[in-house]
């Protein structure tokens, strides 16, 4: 008998049961994929760096002898093991396409043998790429994407007097340099091709090494390398991990989205279970009246929901695999993400959904115990709810009846609509947070954290860059070069000054501890050109400014003294100010322009900056940039463009923003369809009576659509209001990890208050309209057989 009732119920209440199954599928899909993604993202970078074999400390040198590391590697006890790769570090514009055009690339290119590489590289499917034959190459980073290359394309590597034609065999993932923040491209070639390159004596000064060191005492390794000349870059694993912070923003967005979808799933699920059990109250009353025990009645419903949960969860589990991959796709393009649990996490997610449904059903059926049979029968029969109040009075309402009924429904029973508002507001808010983040990243808000403000940020033509990079070893040579360029601009009617920031690897001593730290010095600028948020700008080479990260690393604060080897002299200097920078992820010291550095030993330089002296308008600056690009400079960027170039991840963030919008719209579609169907199912007799007394279908559809429109509008308003404080709360710590804790967000009111909320409200209204067409099937004659 018990089973027959159950079977009959599953058949008879087909619509609402199907709606329940669909909700469970959604919940299971979201929770299973979300759980897997949360664990994957949480362990993301460590998993990737371990798989690649990056080690605990990485050093990059430029050294024609390739022997500057030998002594230290062998003599430092803290180093347990290491692996070395020989590289040739060629100019950023050394790769040409089939038409002999320079291929776009912003930083130096590391060329090395794939066979002799010690780092594990991965192809797009996270497999080890096949061995390379002569004349073939793999390329890392965003180079292939930026230049629209594909496998099989032919490129030419030109370095010194050597030209090597290479067929691109594809993109590979590079754990050390592959992040947008590191931004160096590696070209992996056959060892024979590398030998050809190395045999060219003009390439001798481009030789270098990458060393991956394994150690339990990273501080000791760092101190050991403070005396090494020719160091281009040295960093512990933690810093390489940090370089993925921008990629991890995307991953964390996925993480937050997954958590969001889980919350939405549970909120909606609980609501639907409550609703369906209330709908069944009449039958519950009848069963109670004929003497079936509370336990058996509850068991009946719990088993019914268990069956629905199991069916829905299995389908949801299967769908969670492609859905999870879709969510995390934008991150896995650059990284190898995974976890050791595999599909077990998805299964756990589905089990959690099943258990939650049973728990919700158990909680929702607790009313069965309290209600008398008469209460239950009466409540089921009239559709009454306990303590319902009509919130509005028609006589005081000005608008039409559908609007009145829609608003009155929401106000009379706000709890019922809360779950929809929460679901929509949650998803919309995260879209808006991302919109704010992308708007900020596309503005020049962070430019102070990379360089001083100027009109243009430029790169030199290939010949000039080669001449300057490898030819100039004194300040006089650089000054003459700047004078020459300034004169060139003056002749074009653009009076201007040119300057640049150099970085040096300087040994810094605090007490007994020695560190190798990047120091940035302006050439052609004064300290007044830079922003310091606390203290006073260094007034002489005896003073320095530091970032909070350096303050923490060295354990110093404003007023403390450290010893710094500038290159040409060693001084005891006082910390006079704090500043924030995203260069070197905030691990940087700003030194006075008069500090005696060895300009021949800069480790990297920022873009050259051009400041026009005749105060041109923004439009004129853009016009001049167009005029100068190509002939005078290779590339001219405005401050916004330069910031995007430095941050690197902006296009990915934009893509994720649209992905998030698409997922939000998907949630809106699902939640609207399923909730509205639930509401219509609950309101069948009201709709029937309205039709019986003469309401047209169009008026009933308007009622349904306006109701969902209002709910979406409320959600959009809440989301817009919360988006700004939530952006500060969620995103500032991430920018803080990159070195910028004080962020002035750029809020685009048009996007936040109009475009995005309007898209979501419009989608809700459209979906609600199509869903409400189902009311055509409810006839006025249904009043005769509703029970």
């Amino acid at each position: 008998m018990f089973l027959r009732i159950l079977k009959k119920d599953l058949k008879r209440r087909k619509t609402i049961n199907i709606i329940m199954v669909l909700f469970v599928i959604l919940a299971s899909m979201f929770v299973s994929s979300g759980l897997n993604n949360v664990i994957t993202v949480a362990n993301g970078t460590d998993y990737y760096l371990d798989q690649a074999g990056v080690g605990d400390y990485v050093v990059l040198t430029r050294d024609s002898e390739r022997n500057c590391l030998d002594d230290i590697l062998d003599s430092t006890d803290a180093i347990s093991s290491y692996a070395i790769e020989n590289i040739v570090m060629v100019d950023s514009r050394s790769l040409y396409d089939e038409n002999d055009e320079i291929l776009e690339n912003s930083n130096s290119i590391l060329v090395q043998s794939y066979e002799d590489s010690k780092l594990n590289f991965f192809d797009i499917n996270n497999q080890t790429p096949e061995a390379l034959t002569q004349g073939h190459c793999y390329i890392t980073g965003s180079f292939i994407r930026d230049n629209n290359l594909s496998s099989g394309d032919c490129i030419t590597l030109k370095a010194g007097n050597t030209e090597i034609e290479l067929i691109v065999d594809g993109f590979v993932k590079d754990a050390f340099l592959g992040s947008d923040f590191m931004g160096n491209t590696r070209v992996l070639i056959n060892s024979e091709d590398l030998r050809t390159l190395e045999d060219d004596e003009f390439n001798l000064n481009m030789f270098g090494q990458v060393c991956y060191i394994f150690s339990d005492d990273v501080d000791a390794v760092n101190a050991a390398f403070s005396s090494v000349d020719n160091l281009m870059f040295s960093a512990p694993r933690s810093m390489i991990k940090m370089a993925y912070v921008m990629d991890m923003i995307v991953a964390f967005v996925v993480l937050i989205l997954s958590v969001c979808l889980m919350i939405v799933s549970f909120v909606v699920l609980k609501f639907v279970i409550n609703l369906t059990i209330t709908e069944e109250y009449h039958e519950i009353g009848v069963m109670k009246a004929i003497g079936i025990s509370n336990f058996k009645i509850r068991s009946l419903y719990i088993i019914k929901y268990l069956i629905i949960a199991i069916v829905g969860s299995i389908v949801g589990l299967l769908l969670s695999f492609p859905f999870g991959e879709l969510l995390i796709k934008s991150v896995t393009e650059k990284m190898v993400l995974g976890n050791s649990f595999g599909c077990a996490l998805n299964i756990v997610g589905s089990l959690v959904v099943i258990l939650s449904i049973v728990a919700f059903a158990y909680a929702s059926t607790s009313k069965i115990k309290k209600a008398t049979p008469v209460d239950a029968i009466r409540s089921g029969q009239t559709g009454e709810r306990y303590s319902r109040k009509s919130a509005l009075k028609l006589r005081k309402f000005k608008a039409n009846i559908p609007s009145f009924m829609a608003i009155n429904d929401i106000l009379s029973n706000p709890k019922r609509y809360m779950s929809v508002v929460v679901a929509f507001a949650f998803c919309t808010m995260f879209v808006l947070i991302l919109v704010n983040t992308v708007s900020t990243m596309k503005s020049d808000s962070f430019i102070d954290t990379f360089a001083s403000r100027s009109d243009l940020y430029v790169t030199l033509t290939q010949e000039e860059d080669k001449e300057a990079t490898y030819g100039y070893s004194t300040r006089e040579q650089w000054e003459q070069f700047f004078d020459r360029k300034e004169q060139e601009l003056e002749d074009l009617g653009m009076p201007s000054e040119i300057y640049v920031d150099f970085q040096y690897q300087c040994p810094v001593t605090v007490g007994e501890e020695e560190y190798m730290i990047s120091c940035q010095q302006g050439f052609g600028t004064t300290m007044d050109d830079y922003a310091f948020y606390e203290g006073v700008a260094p007034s002489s080479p005896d003073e320095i400014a530091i970032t909070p990260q350096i303050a923490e690393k060295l354990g110093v604060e404003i007023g403390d003294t450290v010893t710094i080897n500038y290159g040409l002299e060693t001084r005891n200097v006082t910390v006079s100010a704090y500043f924030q920078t995203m260069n070197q992820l905030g691990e940087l010291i700003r030194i006075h322009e008069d500090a005696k550095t060895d300009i021949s030993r800069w480790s990297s330089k920022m873009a050259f900056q051009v400041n026009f002296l005749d105060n041109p308008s923004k439009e004129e600056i853009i016009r001049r940039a167009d005029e100068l690009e190509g002939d005078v400079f290779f590339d001219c960027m405005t401050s916004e463009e330069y910031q995007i170039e430095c941050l690197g991840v902006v296009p990915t963030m934009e893509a994720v923003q649209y992905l998030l919008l698409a997922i939000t719209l998907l949630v809106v579609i699902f939640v609207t369809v399923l909730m509205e169907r639930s509401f219509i199912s609950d309101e069948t007799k009201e709709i029937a009576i309205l039709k019986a007394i003469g309401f047209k279908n169009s008026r009933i559809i308007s009622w349904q659509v306006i109701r969902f429109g209002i709910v979406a509008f409320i959600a959009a308003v809440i989301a817009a209001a919360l988006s700004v404080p939530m952006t500060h709360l969620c995103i500032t710590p991430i920018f803080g990890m990159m070195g910028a804790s004080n962020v002035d967000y750029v809020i685009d009111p048009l996007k936040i208050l109009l475009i995005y909320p309007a898209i979501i409200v419009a989608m809700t209204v459209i979906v609600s309209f199509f869903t409400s067409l189902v009311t055509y099937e409810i006839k006025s004659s249904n009043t005769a057989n509703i029970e």
Partner: protein
Amino acid sequence: MAIIEVKNLCKTYVVNKRQNNVLKNVSFKIDKGEMVAIMGPSGCGKSTLLYSVSGMDRATSGEVVFEGKDITKLNETELTELRLDKMGFIFQQMYMMKNLSILDNIVLPAIESKKDTTTKKEKIARAEELMRKLGIIEVADNDINEVSGGQLQRACICRSMMNNPEILFADEPTGALNRQSSTEVVEEMRKLNKEGTTIMMVTHDAKVAAKCSRVLYIIDGRIEGEYITPSDLQDDKSRERSLNNWLMELGY
């Protein structure tokens, strides 16, 4: 003069591929100002007849001529307008909008009607007047779960009368009420009839049917008998006795 003329009305339901002829060539007329009861055993097709005649359900064949127009030929929108402006409905279950007060439920059809050109204030005044007449004005602002079944059914009568319908259709209007409420509701309907409203009512209750001027008795989808209340019987008891005798003859 006939307000409704039903000619050869048939209604067939198909359940599990099996045809079920609920109404079989039913024909009758209702004159303006009449109060007609439809009686018969359960499942004989009384409610189906009411819904087919009122245009809430489509007949399989036959004609229903209302004020000279065959409403079986009307489309859904025209039928909806007809129900709104010219017909009133009372059901056994007192269906009302859950989230509206009693007064708002009553005034709803008047505000929806395009034919009614009076102001909202006037419509509300009319609703209050109807409620006063039916003795439920004190529950005007109550929610639907705050009133008794009798009060709710009287509210449904008020709603059905808001657009001054030509005819009132009632499907077991006292079926869910106790004796006291039932008597009150039927009394109100009789008063409305005396004021000129035509009523067609489905009922099981001979006591209720005895208040009508005519009774149609249906068995198996056919009209098996027609009882016209003798005009000389004035008191309720003798009318009821006379009807019961007639029903007993038919085997009811």
